[in-house]
């Protein structure tokens, strides 16, 4: 087990380096950061001087080397636009994104699994058909459209929920949370729903198809023959066996949720890392872009590692193999 963890951590470093290298190659095509850092009247010499100071005229390998060395020392540089150290910015914005992603994933799980179970157990009922219809909508409507429609309905027309932002946040140590104030909770509802909608439909359909398959297996038949109640059979035995792939998928999707909360954060002006990243792209703020991409690569690797470890914990067959091997 330890060997697995260590191997994976080493791999993560390699992944991050590859991502950083690709990112640096792409950055040349995003635009000119100097043009975004100065006003219209700034002279050409000064722009050229700025390019030299920022090292933008150095060849790509040199810039990349410099970045890797400072990253190894924990220094991600100073944002061109905001003028603050990038690591500070990311740490400040991380709670917003993690909270939103966490709540969205929780919402997707807590609503998706029961919906999936229901549609698997009672496929002919009208409620099942409604759920399947909702899942179709959830999969086919793009995130930003769902977000804007929700804002229009609940924010503008009904006026029940705030249209943007995070509301009042309470700082606990280095973490800021919106869960402890009413405006914070109200602000979480629509973005979490928007972000979690796709995952919800995914989980629902996955649970449904897995359940349908499991319900046809022999051991379920034997359990019913034994006389166990429906509840015990369906929830105790069938559901447990469907959850393994669900956990895998959810874990992998969690990485996607965190990385691609960008669109939801843009629509709801949610002050998380995704919004920081999008703003950095339009202003060609290379330090932020590079740090964000590397951080996300790291997240993905860690999440995959945790999912694989969980797999080992949850599925006894894998454990036996490892012990013997």
């Amino acid at each position, binding site marked *: 087990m330890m060997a697995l963890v260590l191997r994976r951590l080493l791999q993560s470093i390699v992944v991050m380096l590859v991502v950083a290298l690709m990112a640096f190659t792409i950055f040349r095509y995003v635009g000119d950061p100097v043009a975004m850092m100065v*006003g219209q009247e700034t002279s050409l010499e000064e722009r050229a001087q700025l390019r030299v100071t920022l090292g933008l005229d150095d060849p790509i390998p040199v810039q990349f080397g410099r970045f890797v060395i400072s990253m190894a020392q924990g220094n991600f540089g100073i944002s061109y636009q905001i003028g603050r150290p990038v690591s500070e910015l990311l740490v400040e914005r991380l709670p917003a994104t993690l909270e939103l992603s966490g709540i969205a994933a929780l919402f997707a799980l807590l609503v998706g699994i029961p919906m999936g179970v229901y549609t698997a157990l009672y496929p002919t009922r009208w409620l099942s058909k409604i759920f399947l219809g909702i899942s179709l909508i959830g999969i086919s409507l793009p995130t930003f459209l769902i977000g804007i429609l929700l804002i229009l309905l609940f924010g503008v027309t009904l006026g029940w929920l705030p249209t*943007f*932002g995070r509301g009042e946040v309470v700082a606990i140590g280095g973490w800021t949370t919106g869960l402890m104030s009413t405006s914070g909770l109200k602000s979480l509802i629509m973005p979490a729903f928007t972000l979690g909608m796709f995952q919800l439909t995914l989980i629902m359909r996955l649970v449904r198809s897995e359940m349908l398959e499991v319900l046809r297996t022999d051991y379920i038949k034997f359990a019913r023959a034994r006389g166990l109640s429906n509840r015990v059979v369906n929830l105790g035995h069938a559901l447990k066996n469907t959850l393994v792939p669900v956990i895998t998928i959810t874990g992998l999707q969690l990485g996607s949720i965190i990385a691609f909360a960008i669109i939801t954060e843009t629509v709801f002006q949610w002050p998380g890392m995704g919004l920081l990243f999008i703003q950095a792209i339009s202003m060609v703020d290379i330090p932020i872009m590079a740090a964000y991409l590397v951080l996300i690569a790291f997240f993905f690797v860690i999440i995959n590692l945790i999912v694989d470890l969980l797999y080992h914990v949850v599925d006894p067959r894998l454990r036996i193999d490892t012990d013997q091997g």
Partner: protein
Amino acid sequence: MKSRSLIFSFLAAFAVAVPAQAQELKFAFQGTLNSLDPYNLNETFHLGFQGNIYEGLIRRGADLAIEPSLATSWEVMEPTRWRFHLRKGVKFHNGNSFNADDVIFSATRVRAEGSDLKTRIAGDTQVIKVDDHTVDFVTTKPNPILHVEWSTWYIMDKEWAEANNAVSPQNVGGNEENYATRHANGTGPFELVSHESGVKTVAATNNAWWDSGNRDSNITKVTFTPVGSDATRVAALLSGQVDMAYPVPVQDQKRVDSNSGTRMLIGPELRTIFLGMDQHSDELLHSSVKGSNPFKDKRVREAFYRAIDIEAIKKKVMRGLSEPSALMISPKLTNIPSGRFQRLAYDLEKSKQLLADAGYGGGFEVGMDCPNDRYVNDEAICQATVSMLAKVGIKVNLLAQPKAKYFPKVLAPNLDVSFYLLGWTPGSLDSWNVLYNLHGCPRVSDGAPIWNKADRNKISSGKFNIGGYCNEEVDALSAKVLSETDAGTRDQLIESAFAKTIGDIAYIPLHQQALAWGVRSGVTLKQRADNQFKWRFVNIK
């Protein structure tokens, strides 16, 4: 019981006596506020925002007229010596007194390495302290418009900057954050409470402001949030979550107006949008014409001009929110009599005839560059231009890009452009800026001969004259405009210079775009044509 009722009536009296006037202004803008350092970025939104917290020696009123601010009066003692009398009894937000030392410090800081506002004061101008409340500016050449850009040159507190290691502006590419990036200490009507870039900035009223008598507002707190997404910003305004939001995109303005809780404030902006053509190269970089440059022929430029139906652009693309213009500057910023200059009439037949006369009767292809996120409906205007020119046989290959890619491509030193769209506001709100930057022959130093492309990264004058339009007579007039101290003569010189540039068809001016501020009912404020939002005029019912 007697004592209890006494306590209650006491408390009740207290409750009535406390004024319920703690009004908060919440507003949203599409861009983010990055640094609060007033010399960090020469850009309208940042300077306008900082101008509520900091102040300059002069300020501009809602009609953009120059008013005394930290300087009570000034006189031109000799053509090269200006004397400014500073206001007494002014305090910075931290309690320090404002005096001549702060002005001299600010003059040095604004010209220091890392400042983006170096053009506010010429590098060779001396700033001399006469006494604690008088400062002289000694220039090397007479400059009648020395102070016109000083409404956005903000005075900083010397002691505060020294105590907080902010003596120089932000060292870009350095390793430390400058204290002035997130903290501010000015003399203005509002003081900074907190600033989180990209999230929220909060300010509160400065009750010790020197001009409190002129404060026309009941605001005690201001909260600014950037909202980049257009739809979200409009939704925030419609739902009442913000009191004011700008800019409102053209397609949402009707909605905001017809909504009972909000209204639109539309006004002319100072920015002129225009089309430019490469008149300098011997052969166009992006064109099907080889061996010659069609734009060098005035008939071709006129043909292009006459093919543009500006009224259709105004009506369909800008939805009525533009002011077609014959001048390359907003008429509000000049004293040219209205009607003096007219646009060339839209005339497709004449346009085709001119092209045929110039030898391009069969038309030709040309590449066009356009930004798509910089000006109001910029890409749509370019697309309209493409279809209009197609009607006279010109095939335009449009490349529309975000400004981060567009500007590096078309500006010096790349100049990789043949036909382009650009917008311009003279930072000094004066015509000389337009004559020098847009019409000046590109040279590496004043008086040098016209540049060639090898010198393109040393250009000093005509930096934004991307097409390389050059008329030595215009240059001569422009130099006279710069140093002419008599206002009447100066206006005439400006008029003659523009007459020449318009006669030469140096550019194809399109229009001045319009400001679009969305305001909640019950909020009154003043809109400025330079799109700066001053909170001291806001009243909330």
